């Protein structure tokens, strides 16, 4: 049998293939040859064959039949064999294959080999892909090697220990004695890996953390030596001595100093020194500065140092290097909550970054800009942000628009400014605003009573220009329906009133109905708007005609509305004026179940119904508001305004539909508002004093225990997500009252198909024993149909060495979490 072709020749041959099919053919041929060679148990060429297989694996072809061969290579005495064998093991095997356990004995032998490079190979393999079983078996060997005087082996053993600890956290204690004099090493490799090991131990165990705090002076000394020492050719990078080690030490100092006054004080000087002395002309210097800044912000540093850190970030913002600008923006975003004033000083630079060409930088700058907006700078900032909205990529527009709305709501200096800003957003990025902006804006507009005329005029003019942006069109048609009388009477104070006749207005609205650009929702808005105008305009006949035409529309929603409106004209004409009266001011409510108040009594659009979940920011001043206040906290009482009749039930079933469910949330049947305060005075007074007003964003959904078995307890806590009220945000807290840690803890959840679920990353996968800590994870549940929330959860973890798996149903969700 001829010798199998050499590796480089195979590579050369495969590279000559001109098509995928040709390559596949060559590979298949070679694989067949390799397979038969394996079958013949050829020791001489096994190495070559496995190497070729690894190459083909990298090209994407299956290579699992080489797994056992790798093990044979590892067991061989030849160094070349071992080298390729271990490489193959790292590439082809992992803990999922049972076969990997066969490696354990070989690795054990090689860990004690006479040649350090063989020992190195086995340490490396164990440290890269060792499974928990392997780590358990071999931890002792690793610990032994951690104490050797051979620095080549010691550094590898340290990183291998890190891997062992990650896989089997219980074994951490075992490595503690060996760490005793790790930091007194001169060898930088050992120093670096030791710092990594110490970092890992400190992050995993609060006890270790307190134990290692005493190392702070030593670490400070090592860092100082690195900075002060002269040029060392071996570790120099652009004039800085061993930046990798410096950064790792800074990170360890961060962990040790966090929350501890003494340690933080001990490192203040060295941090200041690094911050001021590091050369910043190259990336490496900035990398160290960056790490320093992160450390300063995390520990209990004195205020002077913190200001220094923020100034460094400010300088980064002016740097030509994009990476550094990006990193600065990310860090400033993290610190803007805690050091708001310091970050404000760099506002103009941040705003300039909005004009950067790089997409990532623009996004960060946008987020940071929103975080910096406050009552003082709102006008200036908004100008910049609106300009940004005009020119940014479509991906940004939705987020930017929402951000602008939020900021405008919080800090608007005047109502007129607010409305102008909204108009600007709607006209420039109208098709990108989120769906819930429409009800938000409508609610805002109704609250600015004195601006109604101005608003409707501007919206009308905008409609004349462009009817393609649906959110704009929807808001506009709603307003015209509501305030059409102001529009035609030319009452505007804020600007020059326009002359427009009733027919022109109706032309525009009818145009929306027939236009191809309008979505079904928009058509529904315009039909209702036209209907409302029947009580405000005099040309009722025209409206009647339009309404009756749509009584046979193919769109079911439109058809239903038209039919009902028709009925209103015919049989219930006496009710029409009252029903279609001017809307009362809508309240913004807290976004939790029992404090929701049904607002709507005119619109049937589902989007409007969502207004009840808006977070409250401002308190519109109106007497209707006082009434709402008096209605107090937790009762689900529909809001009925004094001006609107509250007994449409007598008008027939279909009218109840038309007006929306007044008793939607199943509260007490509607009663005329004036009588409510009279009938229950004591309750209302209690409501005022003891319970939070529904306007507050009080989290009233109680937490619940979802699972409690075998020492593992899982609690759910809830929040509503703003701005989307259909998303419930659940945080799970898993605690473990048993004596042993639960490792490799994985939480999974399943929900019925009408829901959607998203899990964010868990805080860790170890639930420490005896309730010493907890694992938290955030779940977001989208529940658009407001169905009862049910969940099935699956828990897997390792406890006292054996894997545990459990399934459970969670049905005891509090109703507020899904209503």
């Amino acid at each position, binding site marked *: 049998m001829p010798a199998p072709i*050499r590796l480089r020749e195979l590579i*050369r041959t495969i590279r000559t293939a001109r098509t995928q099919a040709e390559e596949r053919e060559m590979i298949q041929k070679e694989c067949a040859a390799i397979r038969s060679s394996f079958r013949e148990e050829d020791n001489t060429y096994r*190495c*070559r064959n496995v*190497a070729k297989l*690894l190459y083909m694996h*990298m*090209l*994407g072809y299956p290579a699992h039949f080489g797994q056992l061969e790798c093990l044979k290579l590892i067991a061989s005495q*030849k160094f*070349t064999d071992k*080298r*390729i064998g271990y*490489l193959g093991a790292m590439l082809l095997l*992992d*803990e*999922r294959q049972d076969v990997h356990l066969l490696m354990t004995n070989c690795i054990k032998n090689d860990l004690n080999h006479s*040649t350090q490079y063989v020992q*190195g190979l086995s340490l490396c393999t164990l440290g*890269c892909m060792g*499974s928990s079983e392997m780590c358990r078996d071999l931890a002792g060997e690793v610990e032994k090697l951690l104490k050797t005087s051979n620095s*080549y082996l010691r*550094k590898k053993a340290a*990183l*291998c220990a890190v891997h062992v600890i*990650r896989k089997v956290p219980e074994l951490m204690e075992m490595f503690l004695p060996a760490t005793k004099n790790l930091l007194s090493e001169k060898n*930088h*490799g050992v120093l670096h890996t030791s710092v*990594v090991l110490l970092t890992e131990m400190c992050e995993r165990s609060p006890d270790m953390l307190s134990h290692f705090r005493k190392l702070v002076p030593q670490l400070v000394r090592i860092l100082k030596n690195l900075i002060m020492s002269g040029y060392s050719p*071996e*570790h120099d990078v652009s004039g800085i001595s061993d*930046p*990798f080690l410096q950064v790792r030490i800074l*990170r360890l100092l961060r962990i040790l100093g966090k929350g501890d006054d003494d340690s933080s004080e001990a490192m203040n000087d060295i941090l200041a020194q690094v911050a001021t002395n590091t050369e910043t002309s190259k990336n490496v210097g900035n*990398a160290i500065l*960056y*790490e320093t800044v*992160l450390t300063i912000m995390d520990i209990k540093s004195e205020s002077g140092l913190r200001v220094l850190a923020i100034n460094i970030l400010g300088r980064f913002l002016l740097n030509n290097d*994009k*990476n550094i*600008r*990006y*990193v600065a923006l990310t860090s400033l975003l993290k610190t803007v909550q805690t050091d708001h004033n310091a970050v404000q000083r760099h506002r103009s630079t941040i705003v300039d970054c909005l004009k950067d060409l*790089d997409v*990532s930088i623009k996004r960060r700058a946008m987020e940071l800009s929103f975080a910096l907006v406050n009552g003082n700078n709102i006008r200036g900032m908004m100008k910049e942000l609106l300009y940004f909205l005009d020119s940014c990529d479509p991906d940004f527009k939705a987020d930017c628009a929402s951000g602008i709305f939020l900021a405008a709501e919080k800090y608007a200096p005047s109502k007129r400014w607010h409305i102008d800003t909204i108009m600007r957003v709607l006209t420039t990025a109208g098709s990108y605003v989120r769906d819930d902006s429409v009800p938000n804006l409508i609610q805002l507009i109704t609250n600015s009573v004195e601006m109604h005329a101005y608003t409707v005029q501007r919206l009308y003019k905008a409609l004349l220009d462009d009817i393609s942006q649906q959110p704009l069109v929807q808001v506009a048609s709603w307003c015209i329906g509501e305030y059409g009388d102001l529009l035609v009477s030319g009452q505007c104070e804020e600007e020059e009133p326009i002359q427009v006749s009733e027919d022109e207005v109706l032309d525009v609205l009818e145009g929306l109905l027939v236009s191809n650009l309008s979505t079904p929702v928009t058509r529904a808005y315009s039909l209702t708007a036209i209907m409302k105008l029947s009580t405000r305009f005099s040309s009722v006949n025209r409206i009647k005609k339009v309404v009756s035409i749509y009584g046979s529309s193919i769109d079911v929603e439109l058809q239903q509305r038209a039919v009902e409106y028709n009925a209103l004209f015919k049989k219930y004409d006496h009710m029409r004026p009252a029903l279609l009266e001017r809307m009362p001011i809508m309240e913004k409510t807290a976004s939790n179940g029992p404090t929701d108040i049904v607002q709507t009594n005119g619109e049937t659009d589902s989007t409007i119904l969502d207004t009840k979940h808006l977070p409250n920011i401002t308190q519109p001043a109106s007497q209707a508001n006082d009434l709402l206040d008096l209605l107090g906290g937790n009762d689900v009482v529909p809001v009925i305004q004094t001006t609107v009749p509250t007994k449409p039930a007598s008008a027939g079933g279909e009218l109840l539909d038309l007006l929306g469910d007044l008793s939607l949330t199943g509260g007490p049947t509607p009663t005329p508002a004036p009588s409510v305060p009279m009938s229950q005075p004591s309750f209302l007074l209690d409501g005022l004093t003891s319970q939070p007003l529904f306007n507050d964003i009080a989290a009233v959904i109680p937490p619940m225990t979802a699972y409690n078995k075998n020492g593992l307890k899982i609690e759910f806590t809830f929040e509503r997500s703003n701005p989307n009220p259909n998303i419930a945000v659940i945080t799970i807290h898993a605690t473990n009252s048993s004596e042993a840690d639960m490792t*490799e803890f*994985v*939480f*999974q*959840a*399943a*929900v*019925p198909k009408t829901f959607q679920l*998203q*899990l*964010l*990353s*868990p805080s860790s*996968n170890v639930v420490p024993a005896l309730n010493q800590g907890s694992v938290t994870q955030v779940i977001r549940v989208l529940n658009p149909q407001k169905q009862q929330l049910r969940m*099935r959860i699956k828990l897997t973890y390792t406890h006292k060495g054996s894997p545990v798996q459990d399934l459970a149903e969670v049905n005891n969700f509090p109703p507020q979490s899904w209503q």
Partner: protein
Amino acid sequence: MRSFSLHTVGKGSDDSGLDQPGSEYKFFGYQYSFRISYFKMMHFLLLFSRQGKLRLQKWFLPLPERERKKIVKDMTTMVLARKPRTCNFLHWKDLKVVYKRYASLYFCCALEDQDNELMALETLHRYVELLDKYFGNVCELDIIFNFEKAYFILDEFLMGGEIQETSKQSVARSIEASDMLQETMEEYMSKPAF
């Protein structure tokens, strides 16, 4: 502060068999690292050409083959789509991806949210320097034809996603010594290597 990237979860992990047959439930776990702890380290390191051909892949977490392939595909698509003169950092799921182009090869690694991206650039640069020292003016062909050596060098520089040696000379010396060991063995066996 973790950035809540709203990637849709879609299906649960395909190969975990979590779906209860015939039921209306579909299990969701935290996708991507569903078996892995919350490590603070490099998750993987990839080298690929401008045409998207993989030249080296080093994984520091156990992931199934299918998921690895998908990640490689995602990475190459994302990185190759980047315009020139943009920064070297990307967000992918909840990891930071750091990439740098050296001639015709892209060096790409994925870090945890807490890691220092600027330092990761230095790490990638150090690896390139080590390759350059070994091969002498390294180019993509060197790595194609000597991929196993590229791995050996990487394994002397990084382990488990962390740096094991910060001195260039030290790494070079170890590789040289290992190569000598290999050749010595081969001479003894009087057979060519591979």
